[in-house]
């Protein structure tokens, strides 16, 4: 796989240039956008592989960009990047269609990894996101409406728990005696459940617990 073409969407110029400088060789930043309007336009024009999307922006924020771009049938992949760790925001953008969520304190190397992973179609979970998912799926007492979508398998739970403990995918693979590819499959499957499960508890849980 060649260079990954990335578009940075963030309303802070300083932050955009900081990310640009930090990203590794294999990432090519093909453009920047600073609000919802320009983001939607630039994405349609440039067709990047991955969009680095800020959650809080004037004009509706990252969720609005997701709604408009993915709503028009585009296949562009999004990685959400934010200073906020509020459950509402995290669960909100993931359910809006982002394939991962990392916080802005992430190191350049880790961000490069995350972008490559999203470009390859996998999901990226930060420890905190993994914690949110475990909490959200565990806190529901009502019987699942759709058992396939509304609950996690034992293996998925184990993988999420290790992510929450700060393990990298490679370390998880070693710990569970499975391949990195299998770890990625589990995480992608959790992402799918998170996005498609229509149990209301997920959103309600997120709003009820404005945890950091």
């Amino acid at each position, binding site marked *: 796989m060649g260079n990954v073409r990335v578009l940075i969407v963030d309303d802070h110029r300083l932050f955009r240039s900081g990310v640009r400088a930090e990203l590794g060789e294999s990432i090519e930043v093909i453009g920047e956008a600073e609000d919802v309007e320009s983001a939607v336009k630039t994405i349609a024009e440039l067709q990047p592989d991955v969009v680095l999307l800020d959650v809080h922006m004037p004009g509706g924020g990252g969720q609005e960009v997701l709604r408009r771009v993915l709503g028009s049938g585009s296949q562009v992949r999004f990685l959400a990047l934010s200073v906020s760790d509020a459950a509402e925001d995290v669960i909100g953008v993931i359910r809006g269609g982002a394939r991962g969520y990392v916080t802005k304190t992430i190191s350049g190397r880790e961000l490069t990894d995350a972008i490559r992973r999203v470009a390859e179609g996998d999901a990226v979970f930060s420890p905190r996101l993994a914690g949110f998912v475990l909490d959200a799926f565990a806190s529901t007492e009502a019987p699942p409406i759709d058992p396939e979508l509304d609950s996690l398998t034992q293996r998925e739970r184990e993988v999420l728990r290790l992510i929450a*403990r700060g393990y990298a995918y490679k370390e998880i693979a070693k710990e569970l005696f499975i391949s990195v590819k299998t770890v990625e499959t589990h995480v992608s499957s959790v992402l799918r459940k998170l996005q498609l499960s229509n149990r209301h508890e997920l959103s309600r849980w997120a709003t009820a617990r404005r945890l*950091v």
Partner: protein
Amino acid sequence: MRRAAGTCDDDGVMADRQTSRGPAADKTSNDAAPATSGGTDLLRLIRPVEGRLVAGVAQGVADQLRLDPVVLRLAFVLLTVLDGIGAVAYAALWMFTPRAPYEGREPGRDWSQIAAYGAIALALMALGWLTGASAGGIGAWPIAVGGIGSLILWQQADPDRRRRWMDSTVGQARKNWVRTIAGLVLVVVGAIGFLALNDELGKAQPGFVFTLVVVGGVALIAAPWLAGLWKELQRERRERIRQEERAEFAAHVHDSVLHTLTLIQRNAQDSREVMRLARSQERELRNWLYQPKQDADASVAAAVRRVAAEEEDAHGVPIEVVCVGDCPLTPELSAMMQAARQAMVNAAKYSGSPAVSVYAEVEPGEVTVFVRDRGVGFDMSEVPEDRMGIRQSIIGRMERNGGSARVRTELGEGTEVMLTMKLESS
């Protein structure tokens, strides 16, 4: 620099004090003014909450006159039965007498006493009707009915009471409408009853039409102006709330964020200290923005967060905390928190890892805490017997409290401490 910070601080404190003093000062002056102007020892007529039967009027008047409230209650009942004037007097006193301030949950009313007085009233009424004694007094009844109606309407003007009603849920809002309509109906019934009793109803008919036309015309003329006034009032109210919020926000930013930024500038050459200040300010701001008030002495998640925050501050190494689930803190779990603290101290102090991950999970049967670093690691067998950190403070402490601790480490691979504590009752 120092001086600037000093003066700023003073401003902040002043602003704080002013905002906090505002409402309280208003209240005290409101309460105090009539009392002081009324003289020195004169008791003000107030309606006590404790011991009231309906609104505390009889109780209040009895306190004022140093009589037994029973006497006054009977007097009100008798006057009501005779010609309704008792109810009117009661309603008037209810309207104009302030309620005694009362903290906490209001005590319920003694319904058996209310029933007793009701029975007395009914008996007296029956007696009066049978003997024909009170037939002449019926003239005041419409006034009594109208008085009760206007009482209900007036109650809504009492800002305190309205706040109490508005505070609650949507169901309360509907109750408010019911109240208003009930009040209106009673007033109208009272007025018509008054006219009917005095045989004025027929004569009043043309007057009614005339009044309706005039009132309708005035309403049409005044409506746009009133609507504008209402909107303006609402806008002002919103603006005031916004300003108060902004003032609170500014006070907070001033006290914490600006202060930290000043400290960072003064410590610019010490990157570790800068990092520590930035992290601790970030955490504080996040808590303030997003987190519900949590008592760190009450729950596992809050305790883990607090311990991590304290050690992060003490050692300048970022500690990332992820919590899943929560439960109240027991003595055993408090011991576990101390063990977790020791594990964090070790990771932050000796491992050389740039960051520490803490994961706490509360499951129905047990609580698990993981503390992980990616530092130098060590060889467990090489740890001298007298090193208290791991053996005593972590493993020993967990075992003494019925839990267990496992340490996984390898040279160059980092360290992970896993603490487990079973929960009893669940």
